[in-house]
């Protein structure tokens, strides 16, 4: 029965919306996907390439198993899945209800869209008329304007309008009289009065005479749009389609700052050659306007010198944007690298930045790659631009000051601006209508410890609707949101779509295959516990393995520094211990695993060196659940049968480096210092001198990534020190402050409180000289150009995070670790929580360094993936899978190494080569690699393939 099948409404068809929809669809739920524009794919359809792969890769989001239920085509061209109903060019009209029973109504713009809602703007001021017209036309409303009431009446006589926005004080007939007269002509006309603040009384009076509402001048575009949207929605409500859903995922993304707004110091739209990064992305694209050439958009001449300007409409109070847009730095790095490497003609690629925000595990190395390729990175903010002249041969002169106060000038053909992400009008309206908690800037504020939950039960949010996000965080967050929706649907007793057999099954291999219906979660930190609970709550058995004798991982020491974390940790631990589907194995590790992926049989074994565990810890453990309970749960030695595995082994502060600095008096690692702060062990009765030293041993050879957590933590520590004693001197030595998104606010706050920030470059780091009495820090201030010093009571080294995932453990399940020791995900952007084999999942900081919020998001995302796999009774492999012609196979095993999906293996019983049809993606690499012609792909036989290749290469057979 259809009405019992779980159904979720996804609003927004960008990356996050597609990801969430696909996750739900793959799990067997139905999705109603609404998108305002005329296609899905959002912003990403315009981006050809992503870092760090410098390719697109969006199609990697498509299902790996049950491939034939989705349409395996390029996602930038469209999305198709049996379980997803896609409605593009659709406006949401209303949404009411509660979890398990939401009523949504929406309308197709082609039958009764905004075209059907003509607006009349009446004002004697031309500037008001023109700007209103521009704002409304941009949103798709037909607009006419009138400079006087008389003209307005004329227009009303002849034309049909749904809404009229009128000024009150006008020469001749005033707005209130116009209101009465207009309603005589068109009784159902919605009228909004526009008034200066002083005349609000008149406006209120007008409402008594039938005006719908009023706007107080000066108004911002959003207020006007919201008002007109309201009228539009009321006007078309009767034609709208109504439907019911169980849960709602808000994935509307963000809009970009228009650089021509405000003072427009960079002359966007005025100076030829000033473009946005999106426009430049199109220029780089071979399918874009320039084709294979990189040419100036106006002069058509080849472009050789390009500058990138960061933080345009981000981190700028003057544009009302105190936050960082998170992604633009990496876009600039990618574009500059591509421009420099794809086009030899580009002699100068120069990025002007304030902090280069290369947070995350692959970004920093990618930026170094750009530097090596010859991209110049200049720490400077250019104040404004003037157009090129005859002397400069049309090139734009760019002037900046370097730290020493030296004036520099270079000429550029193109200047690429990085406009920031801002909440869009739809989001603002939705937040208001649904009364969602939002932050000061209008982004949805997630509930504490529930990264995808809004303040309204049953409505979840992901992507940039919750603050500026990059692809990686959006995709992770979207899958986490899908889990939340699944939980609502399960709670409402909804069913899955019955998994149908493919219409034609080519041979017996297409028979259904099932996974063992349980999960093994390795690591009992907050990531492992969150994943275990989520999987178990959906009705699957979970074995949770933890090598120490205590659950909680890093959150145990972190909890005092994060508001509410102690209660949260306690709740989670209790819930895990009490869950009847979770078996907790503490002081246990994984010994070995046998069986095939998806049908793993894994043996656990007690951890040998119990010496590390202190008596106090054992005591604490003993005061926990009753002894019988524990022994029943700790069934070590018994093999676990599981269909998915979640690696959540966590990580730790990167240990002391060879310099042994952290052993000296007065020098602490960030974690050690945090413990001092949390334990109130810092005596700041008299003002202290504290130096916080960022990136100590990070972002340099040996640990080539940014740990993402230490900058925000240092800011937190600095603010706490300043709260303890405002006269304490805190100096933060940094390379780039990594405060993406809304954490930028803490950065500003720290400056406000008088924390001093000193940038350094690797190679001229501040000098530490420690002795018994303390540590002397000396440095040269780059702006003052003077030697400075401080006798520090505390020097705190931000050492960053390393992963605890061992190669052996990852490889046991056919996954691997990357160069930095973290879990090697299938694709850092598109498949962030899984290995090539989607049955091997990872979350928390063994996956990537990140905050608690990110850890929780990845844990919930991994759980969603696990649940979606375990929930299917049977899988039907794709039609194009590889076979083995055993008679030809010499067991050379070349194909096993060649297969990127770990699909080929030797069956120990029969000693023959076999293919795991679920893992096999039909890529055909094995067929190309096999020297004996024993590897073949169904439906792709040799002769036609060779013919195609020869035809493509135009060579004779």
């Amino acid at each position, binding site marked *: 029965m259809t009405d019992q099948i779980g159904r979720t409404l996804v609003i927004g068809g960008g990356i996050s919306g597609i990801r969430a929809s696909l996750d739900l669809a793959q799990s067997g739920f139905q999705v109603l996907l609404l998108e305002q524009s005329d296609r899905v794919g959002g912003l990403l359809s315009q981006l050809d390439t992503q870092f760090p792969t410098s390719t697109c890769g969006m199609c990697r989001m498509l299902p790996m198993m049950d491939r034939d239920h989705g349409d395996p085509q390029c996602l930038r061209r469209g999305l198709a899945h049996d379980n997803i109903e896609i409605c593009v060019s659709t406006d949401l009209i209303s949404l009411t209800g509660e979890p398990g029973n939401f009523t949504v109504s929406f309308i197709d713009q082609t039958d009764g869209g905004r075209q059907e809602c003509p607006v009349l703007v009446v004002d004697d001021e031309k500037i008001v008329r023109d700007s209103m017209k521009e704002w409304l036309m941009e949103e798709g409303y037909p607009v006419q304007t009138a400079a006087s009431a008389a003209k307005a009446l004329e227009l009303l006589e002849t034309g049909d309008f749904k809404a009229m926005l009128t000024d009150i004080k006008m020469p001749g007939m005033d707005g209130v009289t116009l209101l009465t007269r207009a309603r005589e002509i068109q009784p159902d006309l919605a009228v909004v009065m526009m008034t200066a603040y002083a005349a609000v009384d008149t406006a209120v009076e007008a409402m008594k005479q039938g005006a719908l509402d009023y706007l107080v001048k000066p108004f911002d575009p959003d207020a006007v749009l919201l008002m007109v949207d309201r009228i539009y929605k009321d006007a078309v409500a009767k034609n709208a389609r109504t439907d019911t859903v169980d849960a709602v995922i808000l994935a509307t993304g963000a809009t970009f700052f228009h650089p021509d707004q405000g003072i427009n*110091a960079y002359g966007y739209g005025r100076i030829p050659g000033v473009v946005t990064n999106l426009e430049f992305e199109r220029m780089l694209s071979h399918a874009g306007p320039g084709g294979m050439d990189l040419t100036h958009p106006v002069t058509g001449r080849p472009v050789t010198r390009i500058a990138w300007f960061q933080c345009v409409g981000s981190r700028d109070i003057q544009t009302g944007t105190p936050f960082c847009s998170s992604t633009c730095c990496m876009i600039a790095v990618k574009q500059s690298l591509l421009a420099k490497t794809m086009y030899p003609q580009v002699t100068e690629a120069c990025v002007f930045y304030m902090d280069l925000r290369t947070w995350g595990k692959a970004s920093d190395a990618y930026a170094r790659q750009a530097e090596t390729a010859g991209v110049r990175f200049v720490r*400077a903010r250019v*104040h404004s631009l003037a157009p090129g002249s005859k002397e400069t041969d049309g090139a734009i002169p760019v002037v*900046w000051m370097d730290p020493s106060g030296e004036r520099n000038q270079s000429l550029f053909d193109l200047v690429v601006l990085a406009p920031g992400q801002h909440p869009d009008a739809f989001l603002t309206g939705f937040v208001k209508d649904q009364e969602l908690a939002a932050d000061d800037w209008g982004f949805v504020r997630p509930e504490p410890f529930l990264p995808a939950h809004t303040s309204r039960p049953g409505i979840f949010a992901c992507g940039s609707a919750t603050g500026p996000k990059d692809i990686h965080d959006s995709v992770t967050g979207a899958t986490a949101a899908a889990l939340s929706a699944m939980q609502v649907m399960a709670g409402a007793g909804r069913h899955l779509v019955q998994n149908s057999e493919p219409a034609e099954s080519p041979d017996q291999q297409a028979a259904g295959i099932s996974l063992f219906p349980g999960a093994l979660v390795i690591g009992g930190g907050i990531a492992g516990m969150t994943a275990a609970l989520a999987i178990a709550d959906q009705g699957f058995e979970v074995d949770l393995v933890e090598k120490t004798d205590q659950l909680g991982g890093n959150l145990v020491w972190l909890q005092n520094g994060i508001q509410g974390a102690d209660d949260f940790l306690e709740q989670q631990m209790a819930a895990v211990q009490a869950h009847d589907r979770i078996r907790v194995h503490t002081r246990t590790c994984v010994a070995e695993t046998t069986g095939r992926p998806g049908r793993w049989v894994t043996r656990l074994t007690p951890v040998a060196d119990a010496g590390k565990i202190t008596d106090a810890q054992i005591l604490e453990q003993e005061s926990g659940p009753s002894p019988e309970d524990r022994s029943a749960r700790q069934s070590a030695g018994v093999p676990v049968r599981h269909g998915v595995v979640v690696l959540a082994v966590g990580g730790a502060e990167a240990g002391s480096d060879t310099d042994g600095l952290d052993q000296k008096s007065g020098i602490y690692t960030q974690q050690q210092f945090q413990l001092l702060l949390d334990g109130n062990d810092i005596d700041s009765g008299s003002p202290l001198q504290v130096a916080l030293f960022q990136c100590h041993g990070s972002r340099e050879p040996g640990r080539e990534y940014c740990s993402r957590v230490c900058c925000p933590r240092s800011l937190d520590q600095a603010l706490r020190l300043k709260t303890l004693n405002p006269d304490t001197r805190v100096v933060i030595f940094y390379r780039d402050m990594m405060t993406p998104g809304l954490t930028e606010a803490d950065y500003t706050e720290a400056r406000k409180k008088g924390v001093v*920030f000193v940038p350094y470059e690797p190679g001229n780091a501040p000098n530490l000289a420690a002795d018994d009495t303390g540590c002397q820090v000396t440095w040269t201030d780059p702006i*003052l150009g003077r030697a400075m010093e401080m006798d520090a009571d505390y020097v705190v080294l931000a050492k960053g995070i390393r992963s605890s995932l061992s190669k052996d453990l990852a490889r046991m399940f056919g996954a691997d670790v990357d160069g930095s020791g973290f879990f090697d995900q299938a694709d850092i952007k598109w498949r962030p929580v899984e290995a090539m084999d989607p049955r091997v999942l990872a979350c928390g900081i063994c996956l990537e360094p990140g905050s608690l919020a990110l850890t929780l998001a990845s844990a919930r995302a991994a759980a969603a993936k696990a649940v979606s796999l375990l929930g299917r009774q049977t899988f039907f492999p794709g039609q194009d899978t590889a076979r083995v012609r055993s008679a030809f196979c010499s067991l050379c095993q070349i194909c096993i190494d060649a297969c990127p999906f770990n699909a080929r293996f030797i069956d120990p019983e029969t000693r023959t080569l076999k293919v795991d049809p679920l893992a096999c993606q039909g890529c055909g690499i094995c067929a190309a690699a096999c020297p004996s012609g024993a590897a073949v792909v169904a439906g792709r036989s040799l002769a036609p393939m060779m013919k195609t290749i020869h035809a493509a290469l135009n060579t004779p057979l």
Partner: protein
Amino acid sequence: MHLTDIREKLADRPDLTRHLAQVKEQMATCIQCGTCSGSCPNAGFMDMTPRRMWRAVLADRLDLVFSSQTFMLCASCYVCTLRCPRGLPLTDAMAALKQVAFALDLDRFKRSTRFYRAFMDNIRQYGRVRETELMARYFLAVKDPRVPMSYTGMGIKLMAKHKLHPHFPTLGPGRLGPLFERATQQQEQ
């Protein structure tokens, strides 16, 4: 100028100390991006660019601040204020430093101080500037014969072009007095 000297001078001027603390507070969120320095049309003539000035203010290096002519060279054009991404009141801060330097009557700024004073007196008296008299008063105030000498060349040029008018009709003395008093009162509050 030494840090100790300036601290000594400030010791018995709590009002100025407060004024400086205010400037520091206003500038606290400066991110040293250098937009102000880049945009300032006078930066090329300054011994210290605006960014470095703010850094010195934030580092409490008043010795550096008051050894510099930077704030005296500020033309109050407001470009930096318009461009600063932190929206900081840079021109006001420059003016505040000017005021403190005036009030402290530091040797280094004697000439500027005398000039500004002569200028304002001139305005107060006539309601507009009478260049010839302004210069005469200024020269008297600096009490240094080398100063008038250095202006002779320019004076002759201006005369030749009829830009200097030795006799100018008076607009009536004393009209602006109350306005000046009011401004002084407000400043003191």
